């Protein structure tokens, strides 16, 4: 039922973000990343966004220069996973303001944070669109407070 991993791949095949929700060895991770990069980058635009890979399903979607990839159980709902990806992109869009690849490179911790608010241990846990944004903005505030304290100290 849960998502097994989330990967963000650039069109050049660079990993921009990766999150593994299942205990996986480093070797296995690099192998899957490598194989998926080859498979996904070689797929044409009109092709199906869901593909079977080993005993799991891969769901991916391209936004500008980035591929958002998720691995899910073979029995899970692929189409909905596509919408989870879309939700994630929407949220980033709101928080970064018209998000682009560079935003994710420089603001990687924020990108991770948004993802963590949306999905925990592979389970989608927030269905309200405002809640994530609220949480992340709170986080920003907290950091600013922190900065402030450092300056004062």
């Amino acid at each position, binding site marked *: 039922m849960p998502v097994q991993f989330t990967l963000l791949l650039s069109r050049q095949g660079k*990993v921009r973000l*990766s999150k593994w929700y299942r*205990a996986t*060895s480093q*070797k296995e991770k690099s192998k899957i990343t490598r194989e998926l990069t080859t498979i996904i980058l070689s797929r044409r635009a009109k092709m199906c966004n869901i593909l079977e890979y080993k005993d799991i399903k891969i769901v991916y979607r391209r936004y500008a220069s980035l591929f958002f990839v998720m691995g899910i159980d073979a029995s899970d709902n692929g189409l909905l996973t596509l919408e989870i990806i879309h939700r994630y992109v929407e949220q980033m869009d709101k928080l970064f303001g018209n998000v682009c690849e560079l935003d994710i*490179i*420089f603001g990687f911790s924020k990108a991770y944070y948004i993802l963590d608010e949306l999905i*925990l241990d592979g389970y989608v*846990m927030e269905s309200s669109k405002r809640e994530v944004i609220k949480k992340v903005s709170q986080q920003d505030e907290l*950091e600013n407070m922190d900065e402030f304290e450092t300056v004062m100290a």
Partner: protein
Amino acid sequence: MAPQMKGLTQFIMDLRAAQDAAEERKRINVEVSNIRAKFATSLTSYQKKKYVCKLIYIYLLGLSEEVRFGLDQAYDLLSSSNYLEKQLGYLLVSLLLNRTGITPLNFVQELIERTQTHLIRDLRVDSDDINILALLFIASNFNFPAVGHQKTVIITNTDPTAEFWQELIPLVYGLCVSPTSTNLVKKKASVALLALLRLCPSVLITNDNWIPRLLSLIDDTDISLILSAVPLASLLTEFKPSYAKAIMPSVAQRLYSLVVDATCPSDEFYYDTPSPWLVIKLLQLTEHYFVKTGSSDSLDATTVQSIRLVVSRSIQNALVPRLAQTSRNTHSAILFQAVSILTYLDASPDALSGAVKALVQLIDSQETNTRYLALDTLIKLVARSEAKIPFVEHLEKIFTSLHNKDISVRRKTIDLLYIVCDEMSYTQIVNHLLDYYPSSETSLRASISVKIALIAERFATDSTWYVSSMLRLLSISGSTANPNVRIDGVLEGEVWERVAQVIVNNEDLTIKACKYIVNILRKSSGAPEGDSLMKVSAFVLGEFGYKLAEQSNSENEQFGINSQFQILYDSYFTSSLLTRPLILSAFLKFINRFPKADFVPDIMDLLEVETLSLDLEIQNRASEFLKIATFLVSSNYEDVSFAKSLLLPLPPFENKENKLLRQLGSLALVNRSTSSFKRTLVGSPAPNGPDNSENFDEKSNPFFEDEAPKPLPLTPNWYGGYHRMLQYDAGIFYEDQLVKLTYKIQRSGYAYTISFTIINNAARNSGATISAFTVSDISTDNKGEYIVNLTKTPDLTITDRSSMEFEARICDIVENKCGPVISISYKCSGSFNSLRLKIPISLLKGLSGTTMASIDDFKKRWVQIGTLLGVEEGELSGLLCAPHRYNCAFLASTLQRIGFAIVQKTPDNPGENIMITGAGILKTLKSNYGVLISLRSTDLDAKAFQLTVRATGAGLSAIMFGLVQEILSLQN
């Protein structure tokens, strides 16, 4: 990450500006040694953060080994009081942990040892943010593959780290259920708890009172909280399947309000769909329940009806044309999920064909994703459905997607064609696939040929059709695909083996097959044929060619043995090295049958040449065969009979298992995951459908080996209601400050209905509403003496009152006090409450008075029982003391109320001895019994009684005695 962290931004920019990998690597090395040096000195909070961020960035670039030294620093950060430092600490620890070269178990043990104190401290702190950090860390680091996965890690009670877990888990549980936790904390806690319970399932055994409280999370009003708690609920019901049924009414109700009423807070809408994530998760939960139980029979009618409506609304929703892609996607996603439970709802043929129509319509969709998933869902639907769904009218449409641009769609289409195939359509499907084969992708071919072979074998009624289609398959497939090469995990070679087996095992096929082979091979006249075809040809002609030859005459010489030989001989050198040995065997068999034929010298020559072959197998065969052949043609009788003994005809294949079935790939998965997969495939044992009920048993759960969970205590004050129900057919069953249960019993023979009215007492006192009212369990220690079912479930939310109904049937003699215990849980103004009450299922409810003409009649029966069963079995008599004085009228009316007819009683005069006799008939499903009772006071105060019961069932008198004693509260 603070935007002001200049060093970090600079570092990232440097790396991006790097010309090549070497330069980038150099910059990183400089930075790593810089950080190493800095960590040795004392740093300010800002610096610590900056360097940790840089480490994380380097880690993200894939250089995990270089940054490992930062781990100690990371642990230091955990104990920081600064929120941000702590956050980075947790992040860094989870990134830098080394998972390679260590077993998962050791990894977990090490991790808990190092982080335990931090986690416990952070969970205890009264700060949501810090609690959440610890919970997030738990949820994302202690997660191991789900139950059933081979790599599952389990912490047992004897594990060296066991006490850490035992301290940690209750804390997380506490955050889940505490009324003071915010929903945000509860959400994270429920996912963290899920990960922990997977690791230490034993905690649930000792704390099974947690389960109802945790399950009540899914009755919450916060959609996001439910969403986070559903995975936990699904794990808990897996542990304790009895709870699965209890949550279904609530799940169904929620689905109904989300899908049919489309009500949900505006924030939770995803475009125009109310929380699709939750809808799908709940549908999956429902599907899970159905797959386990196999049907919806066990659920009450209202719940099933709601689910039905949800499914049909989902289908309607998906068929509405929509402009926005997101909205189309979500509706289709819900449709696909909903359809997969359709077959469990005893759907009518109309409903099924409606669903099929909707899905087939989606195959035409512009979007590849939708097409693909529509095909996928159709496969699931057909595989699970017991009723036959006619697909003939849709076949043409399905065929068109064989030509879709996307290979995944094509692959799914082939799977679908395989699964929808039936007696009506198999010729059409096989012919279409055969036509399609040459234009298909190489990687699809193996799968197509396996499927054609399976379909043909399963449905073919016409043997000629079977042979011709299969040989056609082999002739087109063999020439292109390299046999014995794995394509897609399928051994192409096995198809011809299966065909050969079928031909050997069906005598009426042999001659037809030979004829057909000769015709095909003649047509191609020497041109290279498919390897598989050549193999079958060599085998079949060698084995059965003589039969065809015996039939042939001058008119159809082409079937003669000379001609057969010529065909094989011509293709020998064009065949592959793997096929040649088979042709050699065929030749040897020819010599065996026709030692005087003209072609024998040719074969001898060939064998002699091949003894020099470079291929070991061929060389080996050639030299052995040459020897045998020389024996066969020799005139020595002994040599000939020896050689013939080596060449006996092939016995039929005994192994009925079809290897091809193992190669169905993902289709086989569909079969396995659905318990009600009723289609038996050729030669394979029937899938174990009916005994799946056993799987729905705690015994099969690996975590509950022999440790039976100890029963929970009953709610205090349960006995009053129990005792009341024993003798009265209506009254108050239970009452406390919050809730009151009254009951009413309606008897009909051996069955009776108990209707409860649940009254919200809290409403009167404080105006509070009772929510999440669930009957979570009816536990019995019953060996089939009685059956109790919940026939009407109560409302989840009770503002004033609600009702529920049980139906009880007495099947056989029921021992006293073994009635079922019902577990009820509910929430009231923030607190969680549970009740465990015992319901008496007593024989008395099946007792009805029988009028006797006179006391003489009674005496006659009394003696009858005595002589038939003997006093040992038929009677129980004892002296009892009453707590206070009873008068005769009271005793008589009590006996009447519980079901006896009074035969005779003494007049109610104080100072006289009391004597009452009564009679009744006891009805159970199995049989009816007569019961006679006599109650006689032994002193003038009427406080000591002699009670005697005689009954026509063995052991029954003792039970009746006990019941009367309990009701009158008499003591020995």
